[in-house]
């Protein structure tokens, strides 16, 4: 099977993730879209690893997973805290930075 197809899939997933981050308001959904983008990147790494015939890409993918896991912990904690204080998980309600 042509390796390029994996890259197309990766690009498609990344785009879906990016669009989701930009247009969705629900923090959980935004968060999942970020995960989607990370995993799209992971898919690219793994594909390139396969194309180049070495393990560098796969190692980076593992690093990404570790970082993503940490991010999930911190991110969910923030979302839960915001939900507790504002009774809302909409990212548009958390716009204090403007003021």
């Amino acid at each position, binding site marked *: 099977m042509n390796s390029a197809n994996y890259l197309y899939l990766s690009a498609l997933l990344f785009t879906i993730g*990016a669009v989701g*981050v*930009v*247009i*969705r*308001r629900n923090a959980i959904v*935004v968060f999942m879209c970020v995960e989607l983008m990370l995993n799209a990147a992971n898919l690219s790494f793994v594909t390139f690893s396969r194309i180049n015939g070495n393990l560098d890409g796969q190692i980076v993918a593992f690093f990404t997973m570790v970082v993503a896991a940490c991010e999930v912990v911190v991110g969910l904690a923030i979302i839960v805290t915001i939900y507790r204080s504002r009774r809302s998980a909409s*990212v*548009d309600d*958390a*716009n*204090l*930075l*403007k*003021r």
Partner: protein
Amino acid sequence: MTSNLIVYLIAIPLLSSAVLLLSGRKANKWGHLLGTLASASSFGVGAYLFTQMLAQPTEERAMTQKLFSWINVGSFNVDASLLLDQLSICFVLLITGVGTLIHIYSISYMSHDLDRRRFFAYLNLFIAAMLLLVLGDSYLNLYVGWEGVGLASYLLIGFWNQKPTYATAAKKAFVMNRVGDLGLSLAIMIAFASMGTVSFAGIEEAAPKASTTTLTAIGIMLLIAAAGKSAQFPLQAWLGDAMAGPTPVSALIHAATMVTAGVYLITRSNFIFDAAPTAQLLVVIVGAITLLFGAIVGTAKDDIKKALAASTMSQIGYMILAAGLGPVGYAFAIMHLLTHGFFKAGMFLGAGSVMHGMNDEVNMRKYGALRKFMPITFITFGLGYLAIIGVPPFAGFYSKDMIIETALNAGGIKGILLGSAALFGAGLTAFYMTRVMILTFTGTKRWDDEAHPHESPILMWLPMAILAIGSVLSGFLFTRGDALVHWLEPVVAPHEHGEHSELLPPIVVSGLALTIVLIGISIAVMMYVRRPVADVAPENVSALTKIVRQDLLQDVANEAIFMRPGQALTKSLVTIDEKVIDGAVHGVGAMAIGSGSELRKTQTGYVRSYSALILVGAAAIVLGIWVITQ
């Protein structure tokens, strides 16, 4: 010869001034006594030093005292040293002698003033600064005293500065003096740049080797300085307004001593002027113009002090004229300075005495018939009057006659012009002084009912009497055996006799001068005795009289030539400052604020828009890299 007494001349009044200024109200009770005592002790030291000088042979009479090394930078060495020679001692005795008399007078004159202690502190400060001026052995030391008397003059003119016009008069005097001071500082700089020294002795030694151009430049700068301090044309306008100060101040500073500093400066710098004929010519021109200017202004003044001030200006014009005539004239300039110190100080004190009895009225048209009420003032003022118009054997006759004679003998057309100016001035002097006498002391009484003229107390008339004696005798004493001329010979180069051909024999000149004086007196008598004197200045007078009443338009000219263009320059500079410089500074700020407020609009606070921006940015970078590497 050295003497370590000279410094006490200056130190005593300076210390007294400091004590009076620093001790506050506690000193109010005895402040005037300390001030008078300080001035009198300074006179005592001066008199003792004078006797010491007399005991020495002629060549060894000059005394010096080095106080400390003042400036010591590379080749520029200036000591704070004092020089007491035959010229300085004349001034020392005049300043401290007349000064002490005026201190005594002021005790009584200022007795009702709450600030009498401060007044005496300033008077002492003036005495100290004036002594430093005449005792300094270099132009730089002189400069310190020169500025000091300017300060004291400013403080004393504006002594009653609760009146805004008086404060303005003080400022006017100060500013016009600054113009002159600029001349003096430039003269010092040129002297140092070209000769490498600023001491009198050093410059006297270096002057013959210096170029005429340099000496002329220094001479002109010194003349500007002298014109500023001595109220000579074209810097004369401040003296009339300076009469805002208390009358003793006018007598001491603006008649007898400070205003004669210009004559001292020119006489002291004789080695420069004698080698710079152009500068010397300018000196006589300035002197001749001022002596006529002052005399003409004096004819139309109704304010007794301003009339005397105009007369002072005119008499100093005579001195400057004499000093500008070179070695033949220096001694006569100093002689007229000394006799003038007596009679003009005496007359100012007389004017003060009249004002004292007349509720501080200065308008002579409101006087009249005061002879009966103030006999002592009348006699002392009258003696001063006879002295100033030059009636023999009073002091002014000797000194002024000598100047007229010397001017006439200056040679050629110059001599005739200067001599006629001096003679005409003498006639004008006789006219305006007779006018002052008639308006004040004779005729009918024109004062208001609330005035109660009375004779002044002894503390006031005694100094007037002593000065009147000086006005009678001094001229005779100075000329007996050419005493003053020989006394000053070591300082100002002696003049060779028979150098100039005499235009007219002395006796004819004296006769001519007396005739002109008599004409002046007769005109005044015809105008003010034969006709009744109006107690308000008449309005229907000729255009010429109106111009003279406005001091020959001196203020109008100064305002048109210097003040308005100066103000216009300032205004345009302010506009440039506001529009260009401030515009640039404010423009930078406005630009930062404007761009900031535009950029702020991108900060929506929405996470989504930030992430979209990050995305767009990342995409743009990727696109950029792709385009570049393509």
